[in-house]
């Protein structure tokens, strides 16, 4: 319900959206050209990315500035919160597509290829001798023999790291509500640091996969689902850690109050989302 006593707030015009669109346009054309083997593609892509980064810095700078000047009403704050939660929901659905692919290939496609269900002749005539197992790179063993990534070792350490970071951010949250600025700074700093370590370890894990396990993006459906799921997750961890870093800088600069710290909460929600996705990954990609 709207707040009767609060005056509505409508922000004035801004050039950032159109800059963002131009950036996206250049970036998408650039990456298309790049993939098609053109020589200007990578450069255009870089320009597009630069424009978008500029847009993000400028736009968020604007918003932070307005927020610090205290011109946002509680209603605006609530709009931001709702907007962020729905954005996270859309991200959940993006991952759902890839998890869906994982479930489908494991439980439907591979058994079909073996000759299961109504695909008796698929196995008999096209892929004789193929047995559906997981991990698998398919009946033609696309990408050659490989070793799967086990749940112990680095992935386990990464799980512990993310779970710990989820604790530290919660501590930071309680601290910010009670305005213990130093505690916030320490625990928020720890959180993004853990995020950075996670990303680093994942890079190590990938190198291990490519060099020692012969496990690559091209290793059939196992390689596809493994790298796409963990890869997109890693990208989101990077983004989340960046968000936390920015919020951390703002905390150091004395931004936020006990009741007004939307950016903090948005990043924290995002961090929890990344965390939960990881648990799903750990269970379904590494474990079973």
């Amino acid at each position, binding site marked *: 319900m709207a707040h009767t006593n609060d005056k509505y707030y409508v922000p004035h015009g801004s050039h950032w959206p159109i800059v963002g669109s131009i950036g996206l346009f250049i970036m998408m054309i650039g990456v298309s050209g790049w993939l098609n083997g053109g020589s200007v593609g990578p450069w255009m892509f870089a320009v597009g990315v630069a424009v978008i980064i500029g847009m993000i810095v400028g736009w968020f700078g604007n918003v932070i500035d307005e927020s610090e000047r205290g011109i946002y009403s509680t209603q605006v704050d609530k709009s931001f919160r709702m907007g962020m939660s729905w954005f996270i929901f859309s991200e959940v659905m993006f991952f759902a597509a890839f998890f869906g692919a994982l479930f489908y290939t494991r439980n439907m496609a591979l058994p*079909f*290829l073996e000759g299961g269900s*109504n*695909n*008796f*002749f*698929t196995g008999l*005539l*096209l*892929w004789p001798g193929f047995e559906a197992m997981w991990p698998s790179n398919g009946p033609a063993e696309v990408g050659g023999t490989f070793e799967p990534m086990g749940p112990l070792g680095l992935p386990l350490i990464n799980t512990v790291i993310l779970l710990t970071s989820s604790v530290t951010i919660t501590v930071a949250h309680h601290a910010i509500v009670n305005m213990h600025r130093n505690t916030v700074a320490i625990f928020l700093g720890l959180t993004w640091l853990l995020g950075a370590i996670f990303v680093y370890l994942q890079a190590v894990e990938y190198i291990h996969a490519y060099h020692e396990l012969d496990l690559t993006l091209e290793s059939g459906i196992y390689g596809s689902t493994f790298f796409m799921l963990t890869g997109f997750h890693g990208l989101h961890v990077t983004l989340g850690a960046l968000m936390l870093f920015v919020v951390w800088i703002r905390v150091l600069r004395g931004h936020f109050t006990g009741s007004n710290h939307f950016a903090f909460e948005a990043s924290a929600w995002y961090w929890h989302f990344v965390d939960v996705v990881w648990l799903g990954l750990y269970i379904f990609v590494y474990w079973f």
Partner: protein
Amino acid sequence: MNMHRFWLAAVMLLAPAGSALADWELNMREGVTEISRDIHGLHMLIFWVCCVIALFVFGWMILALVLHRKSRGVEAAQFSHSTKAEIVWTLIPVLILIAMAVPATQTMLKIEDDRNPDITIKATGYQWKWEYEYLDEGVSFYSNLARTSNDARRLNSGIDPASVENYLLEVDNHVIVPVNKKVRVLITSNDVLHAWWMPDFGIKKDAIPGYINQVWFRAEEPGIYRGQCAELCGQDHGFMPIVVEVLAQDEFNARMAAMQAEQGIDTTKLAAN
């Protein structure tokens, strides 16, 4: 473009359904298998059910449109709820739907019963032709769009399609099958998706590279039946028809033996099954 066709069309559309419509193909074919007749029956059943519902719903709307217009000087009533009515028009459609789902499910069960086929043919889609392999007889061949059609379908070929017999529905090599025998078709593809559609047998199934789908039919009338690829497969998707010739058993045997001889297949070496 002949003008008479336009006027013909206009008149046809306005004229009440009469005998003149007979040579305009309007409806689904009954086909020549039990399944295709079942499907046709289902189609007519749902069609008439929809017609009855339409009669009722549209009748009600038209009545309202005629009776309750302001120009007739009526006052608008102000009611806006009736739980009773809401329940009625929720429940009755549910019942109608159940009545349609039952025969549909029965037909599905029949279609899925692919036990004990008499003969098995593997059909493989290519861009843009079909390959047929008779798994037990050892015979195989490709089936391309007939030359006459292929010449006429070139851009601005100058050939009137109407002058070509079975335009776009003729191939160089027909599939042959015996009449009244359960024929199993294993459908797959070598490149992109295709679909094997034979309207007279009530069959349509996608051809998927790396997977095999199966269908079966038992054609009851000898004759030549025509269908087309029914899944977009690139530029010549419209030009890879399917022709099946249903033959009496002895004629089938003779043609098959001739093909085997032609392809140099040693029939004694074929597996007994």
